[in-house]
């Protein structure tokens, strides 16, 4: 059964970054989101996404290193949110 948090994150990524030509289900769980040519996302996109994630889940991302690590893939992001104490 698909992880509901991962599905929620994929929808949130597409919506926040306005990825009009990408469907949430097209985003793999374990591939890098940023720095890959497949999605064309950069650090400004990461900034937008971090702001949205902090509001949506009430989490704090303390540094750019933590941000980079947490956003390394959707699966890692889901794990980070759970490790931060969010009940998702």
């Amino acid at each position, binding site marked *: 059964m698909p992880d509901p948090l991962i599905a929620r994150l994929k929808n949130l990524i597409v919506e926040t970054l306005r990825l009009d030509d990408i469907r949430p289900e097209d985003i793999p769980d374990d591939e890098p989101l940023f720095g890959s040519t497949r999605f064309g996302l950069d650090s400004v996109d990461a*900034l937008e996404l971090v702001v949205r994630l902090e509001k949506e889940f009430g989490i704090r991302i*303390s540094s750019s290193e933590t941000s980079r690590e947490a956003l390394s893939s959707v699966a890692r992001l889901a794990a980070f949110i759970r490790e931060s104490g969010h009940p998702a």
Partner: protein
Amino acid sequence: MSPIADLRPAGIQACGCLTPLGDAVSTLSALLDGARALRPVPVLGSGGGDAVPLALMDSQEMGESLPPRWLPALRRLLAGVPGERWGSPRFPVVVTSSNFGVGSLYAYLGSRDPAHLRHGAPFACVEMLQREFGWGEHVHTFSHACVSAHVGLLHASRLLQSGLAERVLVFTFDFVSPFVAGGFHSLKILNSGMPAPYEARAEGSIGLGDGAAFAVLTRDPAPLRIEAQALHNEMRHFTGNQPDGSGFSVCAEAIAAAGGGRRLWVKGHGTGTLEAGRLEAEAFARALPDAPLVSWKGSLGHTLGSCGLVELALAIEALGADRSPGTVGSRGPCFTGTVALAPFPTRAYEGVVIASNAFGGAHAALLLCHA
């Protein structure tokens, strides 16, 4: 890529700066003592938020007052500029900043007080300075993120060498505002940690600081001169650098070549970010393997577009005192063995490189030597 540094020497008739630790003399003394101007301050000032390292002048508050809080500080600084018909055709003024009065635009959004708009946009801000300091109409304005002051110094040197000016007043200022601090905080590079430039640790952090400085550049002989300047832009990414450090190397190698084998020390950019700090330290270790590398932003914070000229003024004081501060705030281990953590005498060296980097992949370096 191997560009040649711009070899248009310019004498330095006068130079000074103002930081939260005082004028150049006081600031140098405090840095030699290892003092830190940075303090934990709510990132949005009276608006609250996380406490982040900021170095603020005077009141230690960064609210947007009317008149702007930077104006009294600029009056103090510019009182030390040698008298001249500044702003006349042969004595132009070059103003640089990365922020000008941008914080007041943010304040306007909150208060709707139109008085904030009088100095918010760059040209409105410069016109205010023109009126305040009685400058003529020959005022040139530059802004290129955190290499702004370097761009202004290079422009001034070119004016002198082309015979268009006798002397040029280069003036720079950047004061922290909630708008600017909030922006860096959103990028997660301004966080609760104090900066430790070039230190190899798990998380990086910068500090931000108020700073202003001036230099009077001249065609006449002067005891100190800027011998060479290099500018380069990677044109790769808004906030990132070439991962192999090649962008840093372009400027480092160009200015090292201009040094012609002389013994140099390097006042680096060193904000406290990990990746850029490592790339910078490695680039200078390759280009100038015997040159000690220091950063003073662990104490003063990053004075953004003004850092090149603020730190040039401090380097000049260091040469006069025969003592450079070390990398305040860092304890090591560092990315390279060239990083100097403790103060050292400067007389063993024949010149100093002042280097800065900026968003957008911009790199700058200049070579300061005794004439």
